[in-house]
């Protein structure tokens, strides 16, 4: 499976560096290494979800209890989480760090991913969620750190879109 191990490792190490200790996730192809790394790390608590919106509640609870967390999900999982993001994380000013695999962009071969890919950034904009893309390894460290910094200073959700050029090694 050509999911980039090197990029996944880089992202994971940056999450650790910014203090993330709980990761909630629902598996998707591009996230397999990140989820495995979270599971194998004794310093990390991985919460495997039935539906992504649960992760908003888990992160909100963890934040109020003083523990930093991140959500790993596909953009369709983000779309499935919108009410939780609005009426839990935004209403209660929770600094929510969301890492969203940006399926359905240029290069996407799976027809079923394409509608979600086309609306993800528009929905983020409509929700006034600050977001940036991670397209190359050069972006990862600084953008994760800056996203986390803004999430905490603004007490609001932020999103990083994990893009094909970073996550997928074409064969």
């Amino acid at each position, binding site marked *: 499976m050509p999911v980039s191990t090197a990029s996944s490792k880089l992202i994971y190490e940056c999450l650790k560096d910014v203090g993330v200790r709980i990761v909630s996730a629902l598996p998707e192809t591009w996230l397999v290494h990140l989820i495995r790394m979270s599971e194998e790390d004794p310093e990390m608590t991985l919460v495997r979800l039935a539906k992504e919106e649960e992760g908003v509640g*888990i992160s909100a609870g963890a934040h109020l*209890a003083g523990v930093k967390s991140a959500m790993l999900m596909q953009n369709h999982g983000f779309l499935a989480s919108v009410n*939780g993001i609005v009426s839990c994380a935004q209403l209660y000013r929770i600094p929510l760090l969301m890492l969203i695999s940006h399926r359905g962009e240029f290069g996407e071969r799976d027809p079923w991913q394409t509608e979600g890919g086309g609306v993800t950034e528009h929905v983020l904009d409509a929700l006034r969620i600050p977001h940036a893309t991670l397209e190359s390894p050069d972006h990862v460290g600084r953008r994760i750190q800056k996203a986390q910094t803004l999430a905490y200073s603004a007490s609001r959700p932020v999103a990083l879109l994990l893009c094909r050029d970073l996550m997928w090694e074409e064969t």
Partner: protein
Amino acid sequence: MKRREALEAIYPMLDDCAVVTIMGAVAAELQSIGHRQNFFYLQHAMGLASSMGLGIALSRPELKVVVLDGDGSLLMNLGGLTTLARYRPRNLVHVVFDNESLLSVGGFPTATSTGSDLAAIAAAAGVPRTTTVHSREEFFAAFGLAKEMDDLSTVVAKVEAVGPSGYVTDLSLLENRYQFARYLRSVPTETAPRA
């Protein structure tokens, strides 16, 4: 049993717990009995009270966490029961007030009014201890046992579909949120938190 009576019965047992409630009647009634800094009222995001409880319970394993859920809310996040059971936080007590209706928005009947059994669903999801109670005395005993037990429990309390006349209180949402976070961070930990 009326939910307010059930809340009054367990109120003294909530003083050393982190309590997360759903919106509507549960939040308003608990506040009217007496707000405390260790109570958080999730005034929207239906379904996520149990997920918030899980997040707190995983972050602070030495602290007892009580979630006061409802049938309408839980039915919106049944998958969350499988996540709760999977991680089985031994410090979490999950109470579900089941009035078989969406009382706060007009009293429309939920699926528990036509036979869906939330305690059975929780048990089938893997929650190790589940029970359904119908009287104040039974609820008092079941909650006390669940709180003392070092394991995850779901206690479904069948209650009448009656509530307060209004739901808005003078406690602002953000005031409650910051107060509750301060409470959670001020409770001494025996073992260092994972932060």
